[in-house]
């Protein structure tokens, strides 16, 4: 018995007990980590999945596999308060839904792991990126997107992660691919490379005869590439059915998107051009050359200059601009685009790619002007409905050769711009009725005088009282 108290066996017993405690802790921690054994005392259940979130996730096909990829190691996520919120939520979702998994993509050791999630060759997946993927659909979020940010102070005031993640999971698991329709019957043509790019962007591409067919509800994008004849307009008699322009207009009003490639020398298309004018776009009847900034001897192959403005057009090319060596975007035999307005009602129009300031405008082979012209533009109408932004985009390029095989299949930036636009237009907005979770409001409505007064009381008065009581009792005991 004494050996157990102080001998060698005592030491062994002590070591065994400590080892047992460590093992119990490790096992329990592992189980608690995977099963989310914690008690959320908050009303907002900031870390937790709400019943409303569960109801939405229950609508997803249980066979659909959803993966959430984090680009930071799990312990790094745990150590960062903001990332931890997102991580804990994903863990809880994964614990409750067998078809949801999460993992860590090491972008340093395995950079190729994130290539497929980049929307352009120059966009980057950063350590705070969160990727929700299901089959071929994916959504990439930056950490900041998971929070409601005060635009003035820049600080987060609510957590919006549940809404973002659930919405992404629902959207990614929708059975159908986004559909892009290209118009026919007006002499249009599309390059094979462009069709392949659409497929790569996750689209299903179909032709449509708007004189006979309606635009399906699941259409996301209409492509009008090199039309040589005008569309049926509102002014035309169309035997009781909607005209082509009316259909396109209604499609855009229902948050559809339009891509337009027009060539120099095309005859006037009054109905179609009137539609584009509503979106602030006018294709000028001219062709551009740029002797100082072209890659061919005829000066028609203009190297575009990316917009660096804080506009929609600028944001379209921002990831290309921010790379160390941005690829060239080439527009061959292009007509200039004139923006009729920058902002009107809820619509904004801006330029993504300009010519240089030395571009020359030719009309009927005569030089009429020189200067800087818009070559690629994007117009957008956006509206917030129930805290979700709906948008309709019109993307315009002054030449159909922007999407020619030789420009899309090479290292030019043409494919990056198109791919970025396709991905942005292809995302279906899934209205999710989930509230964001407001953080606690720490603010105190206290005057400086009150703060000083109370600080004095609690910091000095109480300790003095405690010390005084101690002195009194000590003196009484001493003289007792």
């Amino acid at each position, binding site marked *: 018995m004494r050996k157990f108290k102080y001998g060698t066996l005592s030491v062994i017993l*002590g070591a065994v007990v400590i080892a047992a405690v460590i093992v119990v*802790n490790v096992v329990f921690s592992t189980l608690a980590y995977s099963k989310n054994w914690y008690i959320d005392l908050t009303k907002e259940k900031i870390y937790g999945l709400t019943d409303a979130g569960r109801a939405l996730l229950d609508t997803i096909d249980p066979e659909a596999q959803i993966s959430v990829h984090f680009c930071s*190691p799990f312990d790094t996520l745990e150590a960062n*308060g903001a990332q931890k919120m997102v991580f804990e939520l994903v863990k809880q979702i994964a614990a409750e839904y067998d078809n949801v998994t999460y993992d860590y993509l090491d972008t340093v050791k395995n950079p190729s792991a994130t290539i497929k999630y980049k929307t352009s060759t120059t966009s980057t997946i950063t350590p705070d990126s969160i990727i929700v993927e299901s089959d071929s659909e994916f959504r990439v979020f930056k950490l900041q997107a998971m929070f409601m940010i005060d635009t003035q102070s820049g600080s987060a005031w609510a957590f919006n992660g549940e809404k973002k993640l659930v919405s992404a999971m629902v959207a990614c698991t929708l059975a159908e691919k986004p559909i892009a329709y290209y118009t026919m019957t007006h002499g249009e043509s599309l390059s094979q490379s462009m069709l392949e790019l659409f497929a790569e962007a996750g689209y299903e591409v179909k032709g449509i005869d708007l004189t006979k067919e309606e635009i399906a509800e699941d259409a996301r994008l209409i492509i009008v590439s090199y039309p040589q004849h005008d569309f049926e307009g509102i002014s035309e008699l169309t035997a009781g059915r909607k005209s082509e322009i009316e259909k396109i207009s209604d499609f855009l009003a229902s948050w559809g998107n339009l891509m337009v490639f027009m060539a120099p020398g095309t005859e006037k298309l009054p109905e179609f051009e009137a539609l584009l004018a509503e979106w602030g776009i006018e294709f000028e009847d001219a062709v551009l050359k740029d002797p100082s900034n072209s890659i061919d001897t005829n000066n028609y192959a203009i190297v575009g200059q990316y917009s660096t403005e804080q506009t929609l057009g600028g944001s379209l090319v921002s990831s290309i601009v921010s790379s160390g060596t941005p690829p060239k975007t080439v527009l061959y035999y292009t007509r200039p685009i004139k923006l009729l307005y920058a902002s009107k009602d809820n619509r904004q129009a801006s330029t993504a790619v300009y010519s240089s300031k030395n571009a020359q405008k030719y009309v009927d082979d005569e030089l009429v002007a020189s200067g800087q012209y818009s070559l690629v533009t994007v117009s957008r109408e956006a509206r917030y409905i129930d805290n979700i932004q709906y948008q309709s985009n019109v993307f315009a390029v002054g030449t159909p050769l922007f999407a020619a095989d030789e420009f899309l299949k090479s290292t030019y930036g043409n494919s990056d711009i198109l791919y970025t636009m396709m991905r942005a237009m292809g995302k279906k907005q899934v209205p999710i009725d989930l509230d964001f979770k407001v953080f606690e409001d*720490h603010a*105190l409505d206290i005057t400086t005088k009150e703060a000083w007064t*109370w600080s004095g009381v609690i910091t000095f008065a109480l300790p003095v009282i405690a*010390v005084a009581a101690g002195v009194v009792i000590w003196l009484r005991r001493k003289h007792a």
Partner: protein
Amino acid sequence: MLAIYKREMQSYFTSPVGYVFIAVFIFFNAGAFSLGTLMMGMNSNVGSYFNYILFMQFILIPILTMKMFSEDRRSRTEQLILTSPVSLMGMVFGKFLAAFTLFGGTLIIDNLLNFSLLYKYGNPNTATLISQMVGLLLVGAAFIAIGLFVSALTENQIVAAFGTVGIIVMSLIIGIFNSFIPSYAVRSILSWISVVNRFYNFTYGILDLASLLYYFSICFVFMFLTVRIYEKRRWA
């Protein structure tokens, strides 16, 4: 055990130790609270107050624990304890409980006043206040157990105090250098050990059951080791 507990509590309040501890504790506690909340007004952040207190424990706890066993050894009253019919576990637990009562009681009572000011002038989240208080009490209990153990090792109170400070500081800062460590396995181990990392969930209103077990385990291990030390002395 109850007799030991009563004796210890009495000794705290019949000598300057208890009052000095209470005064110093309230001073630091209230100072941190004022700096983190009252003085910040609209930018008040009660989380920073709890962080201050968490780190201030390396000063406060050693004051409380340095004399727990050291004094008995120095004054040679240790033999009375060793030969008494009280179980060693009962003795250790009684001392631990007395120290924890003083620490916890002071923390709770002082914060009742502090938090009443938060409710008077603001709209705090009760859940996070409760969870962080629970976290602080657990951390305090763990550090008291560590202090108890160190105090049992030496008869010099100063050595006991500094030894406790050293261990507490190590446990507080162990996770801070994680961002500089490339190995995921090493980072995980350090995070698992880190007292501060374990405290994080409490700041969000979460009672993490694994962390609860962790803190209770620290208390158990160090009290167990304290008992082993006295077992050895009793039977050697």
